[in-house]
């Protein structure tokens, strides 16, 4: 399948799911309805982009959910009570993500294990900050997340903005191209005179940045935080990247696809509740949708290979 068609399947799956949802529940076809459907998509889309930055350089981040939870806890406590210190903590978290990338590359450690260990660290720090659910969202984040632009709901605008900005950053810009090169062929990037350690640190740092944005957006929506608030984001973000046409190796990622993948996953949850499916089966049906879309991708790519 040609790279430019990579984006087709995510778009089609989202469109099909959206049509099905509107068919089940015509009232969702409105400003208010769309806002409700996609409200929680913004933090998930940001987290998916964060995961994509890591997958882009052939690694995988199993600590993202714990990291976003920690950011949410920092946002709901320090950033709200003492904005300056809070901002410094968040910058420190981004820096530690970059350091993690540098260490993983320099010592040739398996990313899957290091991030697994870091998930304990982030989770523990979050628990230390907020042993019980609580805190409050800084009012400016709350205002930003509940803003009501004319015609198109905020969640959709935000998703388009995130997709456009990350597309420019990852696909169009020079640094993005080199970073994808690290995933494609690390050795040739090194031979071309690039400092791969710095590049990996950049990729991880970008991931940390989007993780921080995801946590802040999440608190803006939920208005409070707890230490386990975003643990499921680890798996959601990996699923979102793959649904969006990304691959685990080779630096083959699509930021627009990743955002659409995140929207599809969010919509799947809403769709299932419209189906009046017993809550027992909600999680399972999400898994089934994931398998279904990936099967469709397999069929498409086979057809593409044949022609």
């Amino acid at each position, binding site marked *: 399948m040609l790279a430019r068609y990579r984006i087709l399947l995510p778009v089609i799956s989202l469109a099909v799911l959206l049509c099905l949802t509107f068919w089940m529940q015509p009232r969702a076809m409105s400003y208010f309805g769309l806002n409700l459907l996609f409200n929680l998509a913004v933090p998930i889309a940001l987290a998916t982009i964060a995961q994509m930055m890591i997958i882009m350089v052939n690694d995988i981040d199993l600590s993202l959910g714990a990291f976003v939870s920690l950011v949410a806890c920092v946002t709901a406590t320090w950033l709200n009570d003492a904005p300056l210190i809070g901002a410094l903590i968040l910058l420190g978290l981004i820096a530690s993500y970059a350091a993690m990338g540098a260490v993983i590359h320099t010592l040739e450690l398996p990313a899957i294990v290091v991030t697994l260990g870091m998930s*304990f660290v982030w989770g523990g720090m979050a628990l230390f900050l907020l042993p019980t659910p609580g805190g409050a969202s800084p009012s400016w984040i709350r205002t930003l997340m509940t803003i009501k632009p004319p015609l198109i709901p905020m969640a959709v605008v935000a998703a388009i903005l995130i997709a456009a900005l990350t597309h420019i950053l990852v696909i169009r810009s020079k640094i993005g191209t080199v970073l994808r090169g690290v995933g494609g062929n690390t050795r040739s990037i090194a031979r071309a005179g690039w400092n791969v350690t710095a590049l990996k640190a950049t990729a991880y740092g970008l991931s940390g940045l989007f993780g921080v944005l995801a946590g802040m957006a999440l608190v803006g929506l939920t208005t409070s935080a707890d230490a386990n608030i975003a643990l499921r984001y680890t798996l959601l973000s990996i699923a979102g990247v793959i649904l969006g046409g990304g691959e685990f190796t080779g630096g083959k990622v699509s930021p627009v696809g990743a955002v659409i993948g995140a929207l599809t996953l969010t919509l799947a949850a809403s769709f299932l509740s419209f189906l009046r499916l017993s809550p027992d089966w909600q999680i*399972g049906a999400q*898994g*089934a949708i*994931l398998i279904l879309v990936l099967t469709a991708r*397999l069929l498409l790519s086979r057809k593409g290979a044949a022609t």
Partner: protein
Amino acid sequence: MTMKPWVWGWAAAGLAFVVTLMLTSGRGAGELAYAALSFGAFAAIVGLGQMLVITLGPGNVDLSIPACMTLAGTLALKTMGSDPNTAFLGLAVALATGFGVGCVNFLLIWLLRLPPIIATLAASLIYQSLAIWSNRGLRIKPPEGLADFATGRFIGVPNVAWVALILAVVVWVILERAVWGRWLLASGQNARAARLAGIPVEAVRAATYLSVSVFAALAGYLLASFSGGAALNMGAEYLLTSIAVVVIGGSSIAGGNSNVPGVLGAALFMFLVVSMLNSYGAGAGIKSVLTGTIIIAIVIAASTRRSRQ
């Protein structure tokens, strides 16, 4: 002569044991050893399965272990319904569940060509739903005989630890002495070369994904019997644990190299670290931070040791 990599897991476990005893000034050594061997056994059983999968090479990992444990434990206890003399029926149900889960996982990976991470992740959501649906909040107690077996001991060592040990010996013999083990290692080192050499790589993969699920189901069955019933979140912590014990135990995460004694030592260590931090009276947050730091420190130590050799 270099040190065998599995020594480190055992040394770390021994150190954690001694430090914990020093903190409690020597009291409760027996209880600590019993708890470490029991809980270590569950981690070791799932860790052995995960080790086989990871040995298959890069990208191979089973994320459905927790869901499989929960589903097997739930279905087994539901079938037994606390009736005495149904322990073996329950075991059969649990193992059959594991077999089914393994088949589904492998079919997704093989027929749909999904990356194993995504396949086992998506499938585990379905298993989780099945477990929720069949559990329905009921907490069925295991039959008395089975509960006694799961919490009992034989020559001073917990029965579950014996089960883990026997399983470890079987896995070791298969890996080191049987053709199948050689095939597994060869597939993990270079799947293409293995295929060209006439090794049935797909059959090896199938058998591996079946084994990990059957091991997880066995662990779920024993854990549910040990703790007096199946809970929906009972497998949750074993996802991270299963991967951590494989790496701490000295197996290569890149595959093609496995280490059975290391997994056992690392499983003991993982429990002892937590109990060491508990006896310090550390809060849940600090405990988690230190656990993570220790795991990363061990991975770093292991990798610098390898590169010096």
